[in-house]
């Protein structure tokens, strides 16, 4: 009799626990739009990060790759930039903007910040909002998420590798932000890309456990970020970018010799800029490595055969002119010796040359909207 009573009581507890768990998961589905990532210790207990969280080796980088854009932006100094007295310049782009292998103060944004520029007597404040993946859709997502911080000028650095339509949805940050991606595709009228499929259970607590764990981890890494100022692994040696190539003329799935404009996601750039009329935009074709090695007569670098990049430059220039978007082409600005481990990553001297150029651009385009 006693045993039956005990089993019954245990059974009731189990049922209650299961019910509680189901209800909790259901509540998470209802709260799928709640920006939990906005809860952050950065800019409050810890200083904000100089660039968005990204880390392939968290234990050495004191940083991690995550997918919650709200949390990423909340951990950034940009989130504490509510002050209106600054002229706020946001740098958007790929790993070259983020600053692979470079300490925060010698990235493009870091060097620009050190120039202490002013715009109509307002101090110019530069924010590094680059993120290491090649997709302009990912850039559009970041732009959408930081609009509430009222940027005065957005410098959008692009390269051909971030433009093929076929690769736009393939980066982890895009794949794991279906709600935001679909919102952008629908509101910006980007019909060339298929919306991402979302399933109801993807919003449950169980499915979001990794996201929540990453949020907590990001806060914990705040201690070592504050203690060391380190946010990426700096290897003592790295493999330099390739200078010698095979006789390969292919570029993604493009027909060799013909850069099809429809296969480039330039509409993401034009529509994003159109969508955010209150902000000034400048689109910049970022510098690439122009190799002098074997088969460099047919390829500029690991990413680009010459035919593809040459045609792309003409296409983007025409598209930007047609859309009335300020556009600058700095593709050949940096000598080959200033590239590090990739055809778009610069060393400090390369960043410095680039920063001088961008600094002039900011001065020329400086006007408060």
């Amino acid at each position: 009799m006693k045993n039956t009573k005990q089993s019954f009581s245990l059974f009731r507890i189990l049922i209650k626990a299961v019910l509680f768990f189901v209800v909790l998961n259901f509540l998470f589905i209802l709260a799928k739009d709640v920006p939990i990532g906005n809860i952050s210790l950065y800019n409050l207990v810890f200083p904000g990060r100089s660039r968005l969280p990204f880390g392939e080796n968290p234990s050495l980088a004191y940083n991690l790759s995550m997918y919650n854009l709200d949390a990423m932006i909340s951990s950034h100094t940009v989130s504490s930039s509510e002050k209106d007295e600054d002229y706020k310049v946001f740098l958007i782009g790929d790993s070259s903007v983020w600053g692979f292998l470079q300490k925060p103060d010698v990235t493009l944004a870091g060097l620009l910040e050190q120039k202490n520029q002013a715009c109509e007597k307002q101090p110019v404040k530069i924010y590094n909002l680059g993120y290491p993946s090649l997709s302009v859709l990912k850039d559009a997502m970041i732009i959408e998420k930081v609009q509430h911080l009222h940027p005065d000028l957005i410098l959008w650095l692009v390269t051909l590798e971030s433009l093929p339509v076929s690769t736009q949805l393939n980066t982890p940050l895009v794949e794991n932000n279906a709600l935001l991606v679909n919102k952008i595709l629908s509101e910006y009228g980007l019909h060339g890309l298929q919306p991402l499929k979302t399933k109801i259970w993807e919003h449950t607590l169980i499915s979001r456990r990794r996201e929540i764990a990453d949020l907590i981890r990001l806060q914990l890494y705040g201690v070592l970020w504050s203690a060391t100022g380190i946010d990426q692994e700096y290897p003592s040696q790295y493999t330099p970018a390739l200078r010698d190539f095979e006789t390969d003329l292919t570029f993604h799935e493009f027909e060799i010799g013909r850069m099809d404009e429809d296969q480039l996601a330039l509409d993401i750039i034009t529509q994003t800029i159109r969508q955010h009329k209150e902000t000034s935009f400048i689109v910049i074709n970022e510098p690439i490595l122009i190799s002098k090695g074997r088969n460099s007569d047919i390829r500029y670098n690991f990413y680009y055969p010459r035919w593809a990049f040459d045609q792309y430059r003409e296409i983007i220039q025409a598209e930007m002119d047609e859309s009335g978007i300020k556009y600058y082409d700095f593709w050949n600005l940096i000598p080959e010796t200033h590239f590090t481990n990739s055809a778009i990553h610069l060393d400090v001297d390369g960043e410095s040359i680039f920063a001088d150029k961008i600094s002039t651009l900011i001065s020329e385009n400086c006007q408060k909207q």
Partner: protein
Amino acid sequence: MTILHIAVFILSAWIIRSLGERPAAMWLIFAISILSLFWLQPVSPIRTLDYWLPAMMIALSILTWLVINPKQESLLANNQITLIILPVIIIGISLLRYAQLSFLSAWINPTKIGWALLFVISIAALVFLMIKGNISQSIMARCLIIIAILIFIAIKYEPLTTKLSYALRKLNHQSTDLASAQEIAWVGYSYFAFRLIHVIRDWQTGRKISINLREFIAYIFYFPAIIAGPIARIENFAYELQNRANQVTQAHTFESSKRIMHGVLCKFILADSLSLMPLNTTTVQQASGSIWMWIIIYAYALRLYLDFSGYTEIAIGISGLLGIKLPENFQRPYLSENLTIFWNRWHITLTQWFRTYYFNPLTRFIRTYRVQLPAAWIIFLTQMSTMLLIGLWHGINLNFIAWGFWNGLGLFLHNRWSEWSKQHFKSDNKNEWVAGSVKCISIFLTFNFIALGWVWFAMPTLNDSIIAFAKLFGF
């Protein structure tokens, strides 16, 4: 121990308890303990080492059991089923090598059947010799203690462990260039050695315990406590084992489940989160100011406690589900008012072990020695050497010696201060506020002394430790 191990152990405990007082329950505890020993041993780059280490532990346990039992022919007859099952398990595991199951290679890397048979025959011959031959049990007991300590030194002294790895690789015809101390990770050996020495020393001092081989093996390799203890005393464990059915009540089950959940929270959520702020050479070099260094030190101190106490709670909880009460290992140590209290609350079963088998005998020896030493000297010698030994138990290097010295000196100074203050101050302070403040300050000072001590513990070299101290104090 991973979440998978814990889940399997909980399930095993549930099955065993559902068997009640049936003999099968006891056999299951025995079998699961043996199999867990092999399962928990990580696969080593040295071929088949992860098979041989547990096998050797089983062999040493059988020999120890023979030592502590009276030499009688009936001993084998009364334990014949266990004596059959043990070699069957050892040979059976080696047969997995031929099962062609790829997933097993991540768990165990067994030896060839011929070697397993040779090993079993050798142990059987030794057992036969011990029963029938003239091998003195007391000599055998001494030999077993020496073997246990020598193995301990071999796996805790890194240069020796590297040499051992080199020798084992050579024996296995593997590249000796890759030999490293990390390859010989003998999971659970420390606790195994403590239990073995405890049993032998008790037997040597005349404390007899009647226990069959099955229960003895279950005690030595009790699956919830293989990796991180606690170290139960054999007579208590035997009592708990025999009376476990009385402990399987709803209240016990709730309490045990609570302990498991609390342990999982401490270990896998809190301690693992704090491990993101490690105290190591890199972070010490990179840390930019003393405040952050203090935060890193505190995070490490908390992590160490939560990690270890979490494991202990899981072990106590799983064991509680079986109805077997294991001793407590931690009692809010960081809230201790002085070092003596701290060492009575931190890793309790280990300190009790050292007190019983080292500190007390040494104190007795010195006190009865023909040359009489002053009391302060006796306290210094016994406390310091005990703490040095506890330090060496963690690893034989200068940093663990420094950690032992730090704590030994702390204990001695506290002892002297207590003696002195007893004579000079009246301790019965009636003012609650003053008493509370003194208590808070004492806890704060004790915690910080212990936390600073962890610098020696966590850093790989004395030089790194000194750099850490310099940063902590802003130099």
